[in-house]
């Protein structure tokens, strides 16, 4: 069993936001790319949810699309708005109930996994785990930059999952935490926003040199940087080149992967995220779940060019296909 390819419909947000692609267009596109695993954000694809339940007709339509295109539901990404009430955090029991509602939706969609956002408390997930077990689904914490597998918050989650004894709790690493180089599309956007070339070049180099974010921010200030220059430097607070090998300690709980990317070039290279290493290491770890494309370049280029998410996802899928076959045993 080798790594499987999928797409999070997050990737097509530009087109679906503007009504240029509907759900069927998305699913058909994924199938055409040979990415047969589908990840969905309930609150993006199903209007009215969660205040209103997803209509039965919409669920039937979803399953009809899966059958028509030969695709398989992989994950429902839930949000859990624990700040729904201004000035107070949603009570614990209500948070658990909210997750149960999403478990119900995942089950109706036929998705075996749910993506939990990284800010969610471990105890809340542990409390929802028995309900997930009953439903036959797993709750996966999205390990996402600036958090990473050695961060105490993630270690706390890992310990809580072990103590719970539940195999319905796990991880969904987002590959953006392995940001090796400063993404060219970010740099170009910051330059358009007014960052002087010299400062942009400095930040890009400082990132490659792994200089601590706080030093970079201070140095940019001393270079006379303000506004967009500081904002560019501050991206280093939220991103770092963590080591993909850190996933290997957690393979038994990793069941889905976010193939985050900002750009794939014509020659099938993601300039900032080391997919060659990532696929090799995941293969070494025996991973046989999906890597779901998560295109996030749109927001960095939309001010300058028309976003073409389908071309971008298509390129990443070709890249993944090549790497998966290259490393498959």
């Amino acid at each position: 069993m080798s790594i499987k390819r999928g797409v999070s419909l997050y990737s097509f947000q530009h087109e679906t936001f503007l009504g240029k692609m509907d759900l069927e267009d998305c699913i058909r596109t994924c199938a055409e790319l040979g990415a047969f695993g589908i990840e969905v954000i309930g609150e993006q694809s199903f209007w009215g949810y969660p205040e209103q339940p997803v209509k039965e007709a919409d669920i039937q339509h979803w399953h009809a699309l899966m059958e028509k295109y030969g695709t398989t539901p992989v994950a429902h990404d839930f949000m859990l708005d624990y700040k729904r009430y201004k000035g107070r955090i949603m009570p614990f029991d209500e948070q658990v109930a909210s997750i149960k509602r999403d478990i119900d939706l995942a089950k109706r969609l036929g998705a075996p996994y749910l993506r939990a956002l990284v800010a969610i408390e471990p105890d809340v997930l542990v409390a929802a785990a028995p309900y997930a077990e009953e439903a036959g689904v797993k709750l996966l914490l999205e390990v996402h930059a600036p958090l990473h597998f050695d961060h105490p918050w993630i270690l706390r989650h890992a310990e809580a999952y072990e103590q719970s004894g539940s195999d319905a709790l796990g991880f969904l690493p987002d590959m953006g935490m392995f940001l090796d180089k400063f993404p060219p599309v970010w740099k170009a956007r910051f330059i358009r926003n007014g960052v002087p070339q010299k400062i942009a070049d400095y930040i890009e180099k400082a990132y490659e040199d792994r200089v601590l974010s706080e030093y970079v921010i201070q140095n940019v200030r001393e270079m006379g940087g303000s506004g967009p220059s500081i904002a560019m430097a501050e991206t280093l607070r939220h991103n770092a080149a963590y080591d993909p090998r850190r996933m290997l300690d957690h393979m038994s709980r990793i069941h889905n992967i976010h193939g985050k990317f900002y750009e794939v070039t014509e020659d099938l290279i993601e300039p900032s995220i080391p997919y060659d290493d990532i696929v090799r290491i995941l293969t070494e770890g025996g991973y046989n779940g999906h890597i779901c494309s998560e295109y996030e370049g749109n927001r960095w280029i939309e001010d300058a060019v028309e976003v073409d998410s389908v071309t971008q996802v298509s390129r990443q899928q070709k890249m993944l296909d090549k790497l998966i076959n290259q490393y498959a045993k």
Partner: protein
Amino acid sequence: MFDNKVIVEDSLASEQLEDGRYGVSVLARLPYYRGLGLSMVENIAVSIDGQDVQRDNVRFAVRGNMWTLDEMETEYGDRWNFGEKAKVLVVTGEPLDSGSHEVSVAITMRVSYLPFVPTTRDVKTLNL
């Protein structure tokens, strides 16, 4: 994200409220990759031709219902869907002159997992 897609092109329209007061509206989309419950829309700041509109003169309307921004803060039963065009209406008192106007809409969202409260602003010149 979607910074330049908040205000829908060509959507500036004259309005008259039930109490007879005049206003104008634009269609707007939530600058986010999903929908959001209305209680988490913290503010919709509008300015027209450089003049800031008072918060209590802003209304939000979608699918036949209308809220003031204060009312939205405790609306837990409805949401602004992903990509959904909602009407942002401002009470101007007097009708706005026809012709070209610069409209700014800045949306502040309380997003549970973000360590900050983002505001996204779009400015467009629209014809009335």
